[in-house]
């Protein structure tokens, strides 16, 4: 069964450093999303991406965040200058039509020290 994959599974970084989280979507899916879950809190939407551009972004997704699909397969989330409060699980999700269920990857645990 096709699945979304994410790398790395765990990333530890120092405050102020840049991180790139990677996702490989299900191959025929066209809509891509990033969510995050801070420990003990709900899953929160960050950004959606379709046709090589951002469709919608939340208040969390400020100028420190960016997304791209550099090679037509990977979908990346970059945080330019990490803060302690960026520590969370980051989930990539994809869907085929945008009107159906989203399939989530296993997540990347980001720890900012």
């Amino acid at each position: 069964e096709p699945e979304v994959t994410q790398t790395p599974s765990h990333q530890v970084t120092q405050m102020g450093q840049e991180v790139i989280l990677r996702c490989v979507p299900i191959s025929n899916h066209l809509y891509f999303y990033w969510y995050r879950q801070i420990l003990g809190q709900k899953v929160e939407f960050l950004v959606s991406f379709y046709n090589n551009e951002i469709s919608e972004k939340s208040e969390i997704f400020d100028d420190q965040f960016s997304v791209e699909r550099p090679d037509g397969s990977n979908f990346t989330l970059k945080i330019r200058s990490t803060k302690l409060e960026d520590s969370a699980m980051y989930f990539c999700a994809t869907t085929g039509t945008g009107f159906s269920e989203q399939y989530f990857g296993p997540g990347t645990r980001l720890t900012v020290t």
Partner: protein
Amino acid sequence: DQQVKQNSPSLSVQEGRISILNCDYTNSMFDYFLWYKKYPAEGPTFLISISSIKDKNEDGRFTVFLNKSAKHLSLHIVPSQPGDSAVYFCAAKEIQGAQKLVFGQGTRLTINP
């Protein structure tokens, strides 16, 4: 702004019995609802969904009921099995826009043998 609420943080059910998980929403623009199951250190796994034009959707042991007038939905699992022990998230989205998912806080379901 809690547009999707799961008021029970935890639920304990005996194996073989019915598990009922509840979810309330406030945004009348939501018209597609989903349930996800999540194990520790994994991404949310899609379980079942329902469109606002229906009041019931069934898939094997899982049934979702939607009461639009009450802005309430529920997930029934029958019979409950030990492998059902996980955190269950209710999510909702609007049919317009980029279809971001708005999640509830989750309910931890424990099935006791």
